[in-house]
């Protein structure tokens, strides 16, 4: 990690305007990757009402993005097994830099900035030995400054802990190799986990599900202000089995599975696409594009309290009032007691909707 002095020197030397902040006019409220009318891939900035403010072309399909905590810039990551991450000025959509992982690595589509924004972390596959890695980048000049193991195979979404300094990583457990496309190479032996790492990579805690759920790939996470981690899974076994797709975990405690025994769990088709807590943090929601539903669960009781039909829904973000969702048909919809479509763009919104402020 760069020293404070090095960080300031980098700041002074940077050509980027050091005074820009998220409060500057024109910054969007959300980012999402998508595919346009011509079949080209973009990352777009959206207003709070879901209107497209800018589009930035990507060389290939994007996935998620991560916003810098203070500067109005964000990094849009390639979908696995992609090898680019574009740093974007969120006021204009202009590209500030393009990152490439080292030889033998590819990105998994997610990353996160350190709390002060000096460093950015990316989930990566060191694919020759199938090891999950976290790439470490200087967030001023976006040079690669290090890497450490993620604590498992197939790290996907990664977030900052909120109960303590550190990272929480969803190691999905699935080994892939770019030569074999997106084919899954180790299903009978997969062992997903949730790993808590220090900001320098020491493994502090790991949560695994019981053996009968070893084929439930822990893929996406959201973190509540008290540090509770909500995780969404993707079942790799036969769909005939009714399996939990959402769980909550607080470091040091046992996990809780949500909506258990509710027959509507099946409507998720074994697949959680994105997860988010509600604005008041009493509920957690999951999207399933395969099921075409958003399900909302009560954090305290674990009960499934609402299900909303929304075709090809996947992106999901927390709003003050509840949730905002995006779909492959271009819709951005508010999820409250009902689904209210706010905007429809001529774009297919990809997996994630990233809140920027």
């Amino acid at each position, binding site marked *: 990690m760069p020293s404070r002095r090095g960080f300031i020197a980098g700041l002074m030397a940077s050509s980027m305007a050091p005074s820009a902040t998220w409060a500057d006019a024109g910054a969007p409220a959300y980012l999402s990757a998508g*595919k346009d009318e011509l079949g080209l891939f973009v990352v777009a900035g959206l207003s709070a009402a879901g209107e497209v403010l800018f589009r930035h072309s990507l060389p290939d399909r994007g*996935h998620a993005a991560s916003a810098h905590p203070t500067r109005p810039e964000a990094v849009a990551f390639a*979908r*696995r097994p992609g090898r680019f991450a574009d740093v974007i000025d969120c006021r204009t959509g202009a590209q500030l830099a393009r990152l490439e992982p080292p030889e033998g690595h590819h990105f998994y*589509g997610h990353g996160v900035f350190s709390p002060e924004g000096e460093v950015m972390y990316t989930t990566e596959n060191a694919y020759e030995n*199938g090891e999950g890695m976290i790439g470490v980048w200087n967030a001023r000049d976006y040079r690669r400054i290090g890497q450490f193991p993620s604590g498992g195979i197939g790290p*996907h979404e990664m977030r900052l802990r909120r109960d303590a300094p550190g990272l929480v990583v969803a190691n999905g457990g699935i*080994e892939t*190799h770019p*030569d*074999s*496309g*997106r*084919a899954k*190479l*180790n*299903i*009978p*032996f997969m062992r997903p986990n949730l790993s808590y790492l220090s900001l320098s990579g020491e493994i502090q805690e790991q949560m695994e599900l019981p053996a009968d759920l070893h084929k439930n790939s822990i*893929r996406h996470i959201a973190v509540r202000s008290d540090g509770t981690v909500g995780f969404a899974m*993707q079942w790799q*076994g*036969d*769909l*005939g089995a009714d399996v939990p797709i959402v769980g909550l975990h607080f470091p040091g405690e046992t996990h809780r599975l949500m909506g258990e025994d509710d027959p509507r769990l099946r*409507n998720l*088709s074994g*697949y959680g*696409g994105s997860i988010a807590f509600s604005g008041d943090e009493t509920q957690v929601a999951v999207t399933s*594009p*395969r*099921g*075409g*539903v958003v399900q909302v669960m009560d954090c305290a009781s674990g009960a499934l309290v609402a299900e909303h*039909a929304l*075709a*090809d*829904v*996947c992106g999901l973000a927390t709003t003050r009032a509840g949730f905002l969702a995006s*779909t*492959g*048909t271009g819709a951005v919809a508010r999820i409250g007691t009902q689904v209210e479509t706010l905007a429809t763009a001529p774009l*297919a*919104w*990809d*997996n994630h909707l990233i809140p920027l402020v």
Partner: protein
Amino acid sequence: MSVLSRLTSTACALVALTGLARADALTDAVVDQHILPTYERLATETAEFATLTESDCAPTSEAVRTAWGEAFDAWVAASHLRFGPSEADNRAFAIAFWPDSRSKTPKALRGLLLDSDPVVNTPEDFATASVAVRGFYALEYLFYDPAYADLASPDYACAVVKAVAQDLSQNSAAILTDWQEEYAEKLRHPDERYRSDEEAHQELFKALNTGLEILGDMRIGRPLGTFDNPRPNRAEVRRSGRSLRHLELQLDSLRQLALLLSDGDAELSQHLTQVFDKADRHAANLADDPSFAGVSDPQHRFLLETLQQDVRAIKDIAALDLGPRLGVEAGFNALDGD
């Protein structure tokens, strides 16, 4: 399936009874002409192999190797039908653990042979062994890789062959029985597991897609590697020289399924026939390189790349023309999530 599409299918049922009747016929045709015969053949061939090993189980026996090969052929034809009975108790993984990216099979087999592990003594015990050492691929090492020839006594090697053959036969019989006694019915008369004919069709379409992915990304993609880093040692069943054979067998089986799924659409059936014919011709061009050892040589490599393009073209046709016909919503996120 979404509430919306359930509403749609109900609406379709109300307005187009003829359409619904044909929908049932489609599931029946795939179950009766493709799934049941494919798993019947696997059960028969593995049973014959297991019976033979009662009297002849030497890894060097030509009769044993032939029976193994015939049973393996039957598995390849079934290897895209990965839902329901094949997934219970990890049966399909126990029958065929591949790809083996971490070399679990050779390591486990070596351990078994060096220790003369008594786990092979009863079928009950052997069913608890790692899937890496239980199926067709473990026997391929034992039969065709000289490194495993002398690790154990001939008697123990024989016991391994017998145990694997019995286990293969048991798992194959269990899959077939489940299909015959309950799962075929679940597809034919949607109720609980599948809630509409549309959902049943989606499962069948997914099987075709799975097969095309296994073929293009794994059976062809793994040995191809990249131009700068070809991986001939990753070719499936290269030791027995069966790599190309598996591509051809899987193409045949997928063609049968694709044509059943496109039944009633003459133009689509014809198009599919053309692309499968083309893939067969390109596969035949590889006849002098049956184990894909030539992937390091640009000329040979080109032949396998061409075949991979054929498979991807078939997949595109399935996604664009066949999927919508079967009510598979080609949702951007639904079809290809992460």
